């Protein structure tokens, strides 16, 4: 993430004390040095509420992930119920795509990965996307 210039943060309703012990007891055994980014303590659930992911029945923040651009606009969110983990590859793909858009103004069709064709939006492209892009290119 750092290579892409991204600041990462994790947040749960656990206190900072629990974060400290989880890092020491488990995360540092899974990954050398543990997780290298700040672990936010959202004990009241207020941050989760502001992001629409706090589940009051369980008192936890569910699995929401937000990409925020340098202008502080949310570009993407993905929210899952807790049983299924996220795709890191999809996160990286989305970040690269949004960074590319911001740098070039080109847009990324479905299934874009670095190296695949992009589209240059404009009035001439309307009705002519079929000339530039085929559905097979999404896979």
């Amino acid at each position, binding site marked *: 993430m750092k290579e892409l210039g991204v600041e990462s943060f994790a947040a749960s*309703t656990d*206190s900072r004390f629990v974060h400290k012990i989880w890092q020491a007891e488990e995360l540092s055994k899974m990954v050398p040095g543990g997780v290298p980014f700040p*672990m936010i303590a959202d004990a009241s659930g207020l941050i989760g509420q502001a992001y629409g992911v706090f589940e009051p029945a369980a008192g936890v923040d569910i699995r929401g992930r937000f990409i*925020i651009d340098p202008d502080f*606009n949310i570009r993407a969110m993905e929210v899952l119920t807790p049983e299924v983990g996220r795709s890191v590859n999809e996160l990286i793909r989305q970040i690269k795509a949004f960074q590319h858009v911001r740098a070039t103004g080109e847009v990324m069709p479905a299934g874009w990965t670095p190296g695949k064709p992009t589209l240059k939006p404009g009035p001439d492209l309307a009705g002519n996307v079929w000339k530039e892009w085929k559905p097979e290119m999404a896979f």
Partner: protein
Amino acid sequence: MTVARVGHQAPDFEANVYYNGGFQTMKLSDYKGKWIVLCFYPGDFTFV
């Protein structure tokens, strides 16, 4: 209460964090100007 919407400004907040072996506070807006990924998850010591 702002609720986060894609295409809109991210809700700012101040929080206690555990980072780099210590406790700190942070504001999300301190990181304006950078790309940010904010990941919520249900709990430490849980399975997934």
